[in-house]
């Protein structure tokens, strides 16, 4: 009996993974990635945050995921190297010579004393100030700014009570981009499983296969097998997209060295995450994505089973997709607005978990209803 069921599941999976749908889904996923996710795989979208990430990477390589006071003293010596790089860019560069800048201290005098105070400066001086912040000079001055930001953040973290902000190294941009990326990954997974599941039950009704199935040895219990196949397909699609998505993210951003850093890093400026590491946060988010995906697939299957034609399925699944993707958009950290309106905002960290469990419970309930309906329906 088990073997037969397994065979049926395999055949149901083959129906779900129709080659036409897979091709369409691949193109859809590529377009979705380009439109909503690609931006978050590039950490060089803003200065001096991108320089902060590059420095943080060097810090992790030099000190590990945490930087203690002694290591911070060593870190202080890095400024000299950054200033030397600025000096190297200034020396012999006509842009700076025309502005009367021959050393980095000249540059800083102009930048801090005159430019920052809003005093009138010549266009040559203006060009020189921006030149050291530009691509031609390797964003040398932005590195100094990023370095100063890191130092001031670290010193501020030391002033706070222990446990409020840790000495872990994790740039805010890496965390923020990963959060947004995973958010969209969740939406993509929900979209994909709904797209593949939607035609399953309704196609069998349209083609008349459903009556044959009911007359077969397995009878109306086929619906149970189909539900298992739908859940399995959702797990497969989500796993494939999540793995591929995360490989793209980490290979593009190079953020893998931060995986063991805690989210309460002194660079993230938030202490609401406790001892949760970046890796644990990603794994937790993935677990929630799986729950949302399976829930979405099961709900879509039931909607499909309750529909008489394809348009009916689409009219039901489009609002469901909007609702589910809205709930899945902030898998672990975000603020689900609906829940906030229900005065749950002080439990922000748990709201997405509550949402995920709610949707899973809802999916299981509607599946149970669907099975019961199938076993009792007289057509």
């Amino acid at each position, binding site marked *: 009996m088990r073997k037969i069921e397994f065979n049926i599941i395999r055949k149901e999976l083959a129906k779900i993974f129709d080659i*036409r749908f897979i091709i*369409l889904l691949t*193109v*859809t996923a590529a*377009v*979705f990635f*380009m*439109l909503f996710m690609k931006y978050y795989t590039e950490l060089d979208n803003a200065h001096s945050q991108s320089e902060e990430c590059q420095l943080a990477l060097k810090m992790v390589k030099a000190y590990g995921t945490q930087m203690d006071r002694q290591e911070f003293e060593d870190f202080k010596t890095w400024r000299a190297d950054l200033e030397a790089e600025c000096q190297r860019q200034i020396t012999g560069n006509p842009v700076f010579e025309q502005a009367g800048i021959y050393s980095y201290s000249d540059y800083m005098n102009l930048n801090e004393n005159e430019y920052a105070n809003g005093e009138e400066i010549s266009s040559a001086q203006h060009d020189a100030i921006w030149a050291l912040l530009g691509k031609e000079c390797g964003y040398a001055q932005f590195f100094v700014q990023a370095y100063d930001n890191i130092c001031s953040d670290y010193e501020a973290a030391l002033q706070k009570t222990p446990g409020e902000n840790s000495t872990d190294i994790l740039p805010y941009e890496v965390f923020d981009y990963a959060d947004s990326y995973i958010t969209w990954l969740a939406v993509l997974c929900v979209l994909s499983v709904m*797209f593949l599941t*939607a*035609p399953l039950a309704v196609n069998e009704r*349209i083609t008349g296969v459903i009556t044959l199935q009911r007359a077969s040895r397995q009878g109306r219990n086929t619906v149970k097998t189909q539900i298992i196949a739908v859940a399995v397909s959702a797990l497969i699609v989500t796993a494939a997209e999540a793995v591929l998505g995360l490989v793209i993210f980490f290979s593009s951003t190079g953020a893998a060295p931060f995986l063991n850093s805690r989210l309460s890093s002194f660079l993230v400026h938030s202490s609401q995450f406790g001892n949760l590491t970046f890796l644990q946060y990603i794994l937790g988010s993935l677990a929630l994505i799986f729950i949302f995906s399976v829930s979405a697939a099961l709900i879509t299957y039931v909607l499909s089973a309750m*529909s008489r*034609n*394809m*348009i*009916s*399925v*689409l*009219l*039901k699944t*489009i*609002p469901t997709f909007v609702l589910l993707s809205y709930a899945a958009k902030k898998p672990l950290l975000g603020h689900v607005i609906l829940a906030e309106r229900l005065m749950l905002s002080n439990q922000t960290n748990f709201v997405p978990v509550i949402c995920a469990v709610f949707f899973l419970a809802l999916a299981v309930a509607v599946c149970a209803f669907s099975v019961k309906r199938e076993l009792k329906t007289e057509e």
Partner: protein
Amino acid sequence: MKIFISELKKLADFKSLWIFLAVCFAFNCLLIVTDSSYYSYADFISEFAQKHGTVINGDFINGLNQAQPDEAKEYYRTCLQSDVSTASNPYSSYDTQYIAEEYIRNYNLKGGTANQMRKKYGQLQESVTALAENGGAMTVYCASQTSSAHGFIFSSLLKNLTLESCLAAVLLAILSVSGERTAHTESLVYSSKIGRKLHIYKLFASLSSSVAVYALLTAATLTVFILFTPYPGVMNSNVSSLFNYINDIDVGIRPFITWSSMTVWQYMLASLCISALMTAGFALFSFALTLVSKSSYISFAILILLNFASLLLPGIVPLGSRLFFLTNMSPMCLWLSQGVWFTDGGPMYLYAHFETAGTLLLLAVGAVAVLVSLIFAKRRDILCER
């Protein structure tokens, strides 16, 4: 006519469509309710405007100074006093050519495209001159909260309405075309006297039902909008009020200038007309695609995919090229810029009245697609397909 009516009836009998429309309507109501944080000030302005009009003149300012609202509204009276005290016509000395020059510099426009950009802003200067003369700018709209209010009405509520209607239109067209196939009556119908001419009736049925659905959803949403928001009281203001502005990434904050002077009501009506045409355009495309495709699900997926993929095009083609401006005329780009319809449209559009031209282009291409698909459907060998 009888066939046309029965096709319409088939579509109207579709329960899921009504559920979908109800969900869309509920979503629009939710949008209106969640925007309520801006209503208090607008409420005061609306109430005041009903007595003193929307034009900021001596009477308006005197009325405001003499008004004795209750304690709760005194704060808003002070705010409005502060907003109108420094009000002056921004168009009397406004020159639009700097906008063109900034775009030309930022987007590296050359030759014909640069000249066309200058020409567009030369045309806009005429609108500015007209606005300076007719004093349209000296209307209150929502005073300092105009940008938020205008953004909510046109970039949020009406934009959602357009999207929902286009989706409904696409699904209605698919439903209409694939109805016979789903009911297994295709061969029967094709062998009848009417034969494949039925597609024509289906086309008109899906077009008229799409527009009807749009009208219904709009009427329901606007009823809630009129009853539950304070904005209708100030919508006799000119849409180019001195308080209305566009936050432009290239030139900073600049006035909201339409090609012809119009009140907010007129602007809304014009926007609704373009949305209705856009809905019809989507219905045409959906009809054509479903007619040539064997699967209604795949045709829906392809249509949605093509529309989203069109958003990638402006990023692929060279920035500032003619192709760049052409790709910005895709239906999705037009829909995204709904908040700036009937204005110059910023650096993404090279010609005046881009929304009208874009929508007419959509309808023309849609009509050609329908013609081609009808010819295809007429010559299709159904027996061989089986």
